[in-house]
């Protein structure tokens, strides 16, 4: 995440200057100006924010195992060797081009635990905000493909979609870009002009991360906050600047960055994020009251939406993602299921197969079924929460949000002789789903050849969605469609106009 600090202080645009002014005013321990800047949010930037949640479908989410599924009867003679489904398992959704796969199986690969997955309820509920686009990528390496799903293979100087959103809308937000994923999904972009504030803040344990948003609260027997502020100010204004160490390394980029970062502490503490983002109730394992802490005012609500947050890191991430947006801490949040197996033995349930979607190597259909179900359940809850939260003047947070189901690649399209249990490899041919009131909803852009399972592209200029067989959409085109749907100004970036992907094209 290396950044030339000159980008922070030496090359400021208007938005950055406003932010820098707030930071300078904050000074040593005084956080009020930066807090006020944060609270002003978009007012400071004179631009209403749009929010991006990246749900990283780690391992390779196959689009033909969900919204573009193929029925055996459509594949004809190819059906026996093609990844297609018994007709009854592929649901058509009324008044929609989408399909959905509802499965019931007795085990998940070699794991002797039954599962059922349901996509049709989700698609039926959210079809008007759902858009599926096809794409053919350029890598079957997980880490590389993960990153390319976010940069469009360096479509815009290597800036990730999250960094683009944070740079556009996040100047007034305290931590604009929070990333709880791993590997390529957390890898920073390489655009040296990306402002430092737009770079991702990594999160390890989502449920406990709010503890890192206050320097003292929740620690027993400490001096008062006022006395701690005295010490901070003395350190920042006397000890450090007068030390020979600081003078010796006066040109250190990292010391300058540190100075800027610690001057934001007071503002973050005044927002009481250690409370507002805290998912946990006061329980024996998490004795909040004993340590002077309390749960978020929204704790009960997010726990109802994500009841397994304490045992399932993905649910904890989703809950935190909502709170980060609701409390106007962030404009973009990235979450992802891990590659670790997660079993609920009490309920006899596979929450997360090993390797997530990449368990498809061992058992394609089961892995895709369990994981798509998992992703859609989390997305559904996030949409519900954001819809119920007013942004301003009757407009909900969801009205200004997008969920992007990023993934590395698709899977190979073949199966051995009518097999229901089979393994697949990686395939660059696939597609993405996006969920947002800002995208061209209830549309499949492109299509799939039912005899090969290969997707094909579409006319990027045609909002009605004109499929073009023989055309493959590039990473750059899809990246462009995403950032433009989010209203990102990419002037001079030489990105294609993907009118087909925008609701108000």
């Amino acid at each position, binding site marked *: 995440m290396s950044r030339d600090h000159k980008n922070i202080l030496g090359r400021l645009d208007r938005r950055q200057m406003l932010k820098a002014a707030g930071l300078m005013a904050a000074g040593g321990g005084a956080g009020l100006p930066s807090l006020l800047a944060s609270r002003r949010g978009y007012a400071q930037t004179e631009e209403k924010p749009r929010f991006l949640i990246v749900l990283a479908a780690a391992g390779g989410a196959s689009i033909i195992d969900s919204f573009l599924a193929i029925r055996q009867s459509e594949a004809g003679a190819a059906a026996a060797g093609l990844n297609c489904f018994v007709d009854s398992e592929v649901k058509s959704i009324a008044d929609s081009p989408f399909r959905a796969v509802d499965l019931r199986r007795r085990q998940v690969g070699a794991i002797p635990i039954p599962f059922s997955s349901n996509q049709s309820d989700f698609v039926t509920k959210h079809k008007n905000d759902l858009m599926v686009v096809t794409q053919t990528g350029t890598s079957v390496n997980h880490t590389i493909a993960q990153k390319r799903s976010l940069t469009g293979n360096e479509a815009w100087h290597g800036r990730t979609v999250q960094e683009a959103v944070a740079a556009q809308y996040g100047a007034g937000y305290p931590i604009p870009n929070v990333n709880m994923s791993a*590997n390529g999904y957390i890898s920073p972009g390489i655009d040296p002009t990306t402002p430092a504030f737009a770079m991702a803040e990594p999160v390890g344990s989502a449920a406990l991360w709010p503890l890192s948003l206050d*320097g003292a609260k929740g620690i027993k027997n400490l001096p008062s906050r006022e006395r701690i502020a*005295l010490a901070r100010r003395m350190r920042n204004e006397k*000890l450090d600047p*007068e030390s020979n160490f600081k003078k010796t*390394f006066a040109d250190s980029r990292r010391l300058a960055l540190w100075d800027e970062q610690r001057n934001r502490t007071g503002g973050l503490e005044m927002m009481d994020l250690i409370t507002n983002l805290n998912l946990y109730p006061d329980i024996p394992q998490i004795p909040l009251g004993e340590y002077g802490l309390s749960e978020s005012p929204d704790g009960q609500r997010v726990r109802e939406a994500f009841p397994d947050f304490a045992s399932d890191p993905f649910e904890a991430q989703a809950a935190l993602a909502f709170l980060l947006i609701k409390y106007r801490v962030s404009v973009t949040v990235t979450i992802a299921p891990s590659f670790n197996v997660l079993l609920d033995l009490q309920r006899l349930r596979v929450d997360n197969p090993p390797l997530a979607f990449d368990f498809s190597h061992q058992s394609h259909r089961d892995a895709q079924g369990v994981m798509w179900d998992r992703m859609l359940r989390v997305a559904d809850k996030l949409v519900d929460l954001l819809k119920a939260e007013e942004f301003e003047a009757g407009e909900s947070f969801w009205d200004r949000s997008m969920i992007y189901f990023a993934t590395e690649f698709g899977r190979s399209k073949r199966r051995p002789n009518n097999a229901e249990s089979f393994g697949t490899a990686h395939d660059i041919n696939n597609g993405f789903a996006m969920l947002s009131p800002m995208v061209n909803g209830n549309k499949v852009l492109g299509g799939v050849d039912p005899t090969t399972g290969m997707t094909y592209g579409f006319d990027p200029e045609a909002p009605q969605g004109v499929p073009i067989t023989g055309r493959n959409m590039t990473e750059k085109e899809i990246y462009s469609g995403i950032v433009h749907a989010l209203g990102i100004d990419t002037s001079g970036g030489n990105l294609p106009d993907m009118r087909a992907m925008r609701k108000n094209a």
Partner: protein
Amino acid sequence: MFPKRLITVLAAGALLSGCLASENLNPTGTPDSGVSGDGDSGVANGDGGTVENDGGTTGPAFAKSSKAVLRFKRTTRLRNDISQVLGIPEGEICNELGQYSCTDYVHTISLGGVEAYTLGINEPTADTTVTTPIATERVVLSACERRARDDMAAPDGALIFKGLVVTDGKLDVGSAEVAQSIDTLYKRALLRAPSSAEVSHLTQLYRDIEADQQPNPARDWAILTCFSVLTSMESLFY
């Protein structure tokens, strides 16, 4: 043209003198002899950013690093250093909610660590992030509270805040024990003695604390003196 060349020569000479002088300095560029005296004579303030002094208030001239390459200690080194400086077992320096290790679990990523096995984060961030200073302060405050508590409970056997005379929660900030405590803290934490200015700032901190008329100024001063030094840039970067 000529003056420019002259300046270059002088700068080179000053740089050379800085290099020679550095033989008597510890790696931080500060004298080993304890409280600093006036700046050494004969070297003007940096003329090209290569050599500076501070006008003779805190230290001698020293060479300014042209590369200025520093690293944050990150989670493991931070934990180990705090443990050693404050004489607290690694597992006891900071545990969130009394149970979860600050450095090894809760704040590992914020503190620049990795967690490959359960989180899949196998590369640390190249730079500190917004939460790094906050997490660092939590770790240090927790450890310093423990050190101050233990030292003040048994002043004679104290590790850092030794022999402090506390009356009604207050200190005689001008006492030799206070100065000695500061000296001990600096030598354990930064491997050097404090400058007179640093001693002055920390004793002034006590006066500022006591001025708010709240209880336990002596105890709070001990915690916050420890905190100030251990969260200074000199302590956290190398």
